[in-house]
């Protein structure tokens, strides 16, 4: 909602078992960002943002 580049899809895992399998969802909530970063469980806002932003942070070269 806060940035035009960000899309958030909440997916009902039991309804789309193939997708849940592909992302190896064993517990919910499971969060996957840009197919690069993933984590399980509800986090406090600041930590959540930190995890999400890892997906777009450049790796040091």
């Amino acid at each position, binding site marked *: *909602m806060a940035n035009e*580049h960000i*899309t*958030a899809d909440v*997916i009902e895992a039991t309804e789309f078992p193939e997708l849940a399998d592909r992302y190896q969802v064993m517990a*919910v909530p499971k969060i996957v960002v*840009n197919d690069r970063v993933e984590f399980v469980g509800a986090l406090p806002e600041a930590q959540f943002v930190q995890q999400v932003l890892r997906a777009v942070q450049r790796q040091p070269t």
Partner: protein
Amino acid sequence: MAFISLQDQEYLRRRFADELDQPVKLILFVRPDLRLFIPGQQPGTSRETRQLLEELVALSEKLSLEVHDVTAEPELARQHNVTLTPTLIMGDATQRKGTPRFIGSPSGYEFLTVVEDIIDLSKGDPGLSEETLTRLATVTEPLHILVFTTPT
């Protein structure tokens, strides 16, 4: 039979009356029910989701629902990057920057997630701290967040 009980309808009607500011449009992409049972393929929840959302938008004149059939409007589905049904897109492009969507039937506890999102969109306030908003403002490339949930 209604999905939203009379008691919940009353609760939501009051919350919407108190908390909604700007109108919010819900855009739902559905697929018609198959008349054929295909082994391995689960029946979708498009019909239930549509009924649930019709009941929801009836609780406030500030809410509206637009329903599209992905088989009849494949180009529109592509434009919105919709591949699964039902997909609910909350708000139109005029009232938000990014795109919050719900894929599947928003039942159980997840129904409340949709209600809270609608209220946030209507207020134009995602309910995040200043610090979070500042950090999110630095994002200049596509960021696609998938959140897997279950109804409980």
